[in-house]
């Protein structure tokens, strides 16, 4: 057989068995007036999308993006769980053209929905199983905030290395603070000493001035005295007296030599 023949035959078979195609029925039903079917279809597709996202999250290497995706998943799950009671109400309603079996089936489907929603993996270690009825407020309790205690397991892994780093940083900071304290003490002492030295210098300035004047006076006196002394000595040692002294000395030496010869 040729390809075209196979294709046509396949098409014919598909058309024949289209009735049994659940997906297609669902799609057909979507365009119908059945609100339940519509809502159910949308919820279903959301669940599928969420499952896909969960797959993506588990494959994600970067923890940050994984966390973000998980958060989104949780939000989606919460939203979907909110839709469930609506679906329940719609399921119970009788819609024309619907058999009782289908009605029961719808109910079962709706009941199975929450489990399916919960089963979407979003990084929770142990999702709490809700066993009670679905009251109006129950879905609210299911809404989890991002910073819930249950999610710490993942976060701890992250911060083990960073907490060590933080510890080291704190230690180093403390040591630096200690060193700086010691330096500041030393500087205080230096400052005090410098101030005292400054005051001491200020104190000594007038004393130095006094010393200056007194010493000037003393030098002037000395100069005077020196000059006068010089004059006196010159007078004493005038040449005439000097010659007389020398001649007399020679005479005495001559007499002495004569006596001892």
């Amino acid at each position, binding site marked *: 057989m040729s390809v075209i023949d196979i294709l046509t035959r396949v098409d014919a078979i598909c058309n024949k068995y289209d009735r049994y195609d659940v997906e297609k029925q669902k799609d057909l039903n979507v365009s119908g007036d059945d609100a339940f079917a519509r809502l159910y279809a949308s919820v279903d597709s959301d669940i599928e999308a969420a499952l896909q996202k969960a797959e993506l999250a588990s494959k994600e290497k970067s923890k940050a993006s994984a966390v973000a995706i998980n958060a989104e998943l949780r939000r989606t799950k919460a939203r979907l769980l909110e839709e469930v009671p609506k679906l329940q109400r719609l399921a119970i309603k009788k819609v024309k053209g619907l058999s009782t079996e289908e009605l029961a089936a719808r109910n079962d489907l709706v009941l199975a929905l929450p489990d399916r929603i919960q089963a979407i993996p979003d990084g929770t270690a142990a999702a709490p199983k809700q066993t009670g009825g679905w009251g109006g407020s129950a879905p609210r309790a299911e809404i989890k905030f991002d910073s819930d205690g249950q999610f710490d397991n993942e976060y701890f892994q992250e911060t083990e290395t960073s907490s060590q780093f933080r510890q080291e940083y704190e230690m180093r900071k403390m040591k630096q603070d200690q060193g700086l304290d010691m330096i*500041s*003490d030393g500087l*205080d*002492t230096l400052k*005090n000493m410098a*101030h*005292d030295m*400054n*005051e001491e210098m*200020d*104190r000594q300035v*007038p004393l130095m001035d006094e010393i200056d004047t007194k010493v000037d006076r003393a030098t002037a006196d000395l100069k005077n005295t020196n000059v006068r002394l010089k004059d006196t000595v010159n007078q004493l040692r005038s040449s005439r007296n000097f010659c007389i002294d020398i001649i007399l000395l020679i005479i005495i030496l001559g007499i002495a030599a004569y006596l001892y010869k």
Partner: protein
Amino acid sequence: MPISDPDKLISKADKLTKLSLTRWSADWRNATLLYEEAANLFRVAKKNEKAKEAFEKASKGQEMLSSPWDAAKHMESAAALAKELGYWNEVTDFYRRASELYMECGRPQPASDALAKGASALEDAMPEAAVQLYNDASAILEEDGKEQMAFDLYRAATSVYIKLEKYSDAASSLLQLGLAADKCNATNSQCKAYLGAIIIYLYAHDFKQAEKCYNDCSQVDAFLRSDQNRCASKLLSAYTEGDIEEIKRVVQSSTVSNLDHVVIKLARKLPTGDVSALKTDAGKEEEEPLDENDLT
């Protein structure tokens, strides 16, 4: 003169000075020389009593010779010997006389030095007299306008007062130090003096005085801008809150450790007695003004 026996010198000199029928006017010049020699010999021989007397007489001789400078010098030596002998009254008298003689020379500096020396000699034996001498010495310097030299005197007077446990007097002498420092623009000493005064008032349990003192000192610009001011305000606020730990911490700080030794010792003992009582008093005081504020 080759006579080396100081006693003989003394007797000779006495004879020169004593007026009698044969001698109508005393020969002070020679007498003084003899006295000085004798005194030196006595001092070398460690005969302090005789040396002291000899110095007294030598000083008198110099006075007669109208040289107050030498007279004062001899008086000082006499006083030093008297101190070693332990004749405290004589020590006071001699140093005062020496100071007067220095003032006659017109030299206030050595005058106050003499009084200061006397005071330090008497610190242990007669602290009240010592304090008196310190105050007189500082007064002389202040008159002369040389307050800078007075700082040490005020500090010494403060330490003696603290030893005598006269805390208000001690604080007032520190405040006088502050005043003197202010005239010389010695801001560091001034601020330290004020902080010391506040600490002394706190030690004496006189919280109100301390606060008053702090308020007065805050009027002074230099103090207001200083480290010591911050330290004082921390201390006072710690007191009003009754926080003993805080007081201890402030006292250990380097600002307080730069003060005078005696003041540091007081500061370390500071949270004396009932800090909580002060706290309640201060608290009550604070409440009333708040009420007034609310009404207005």
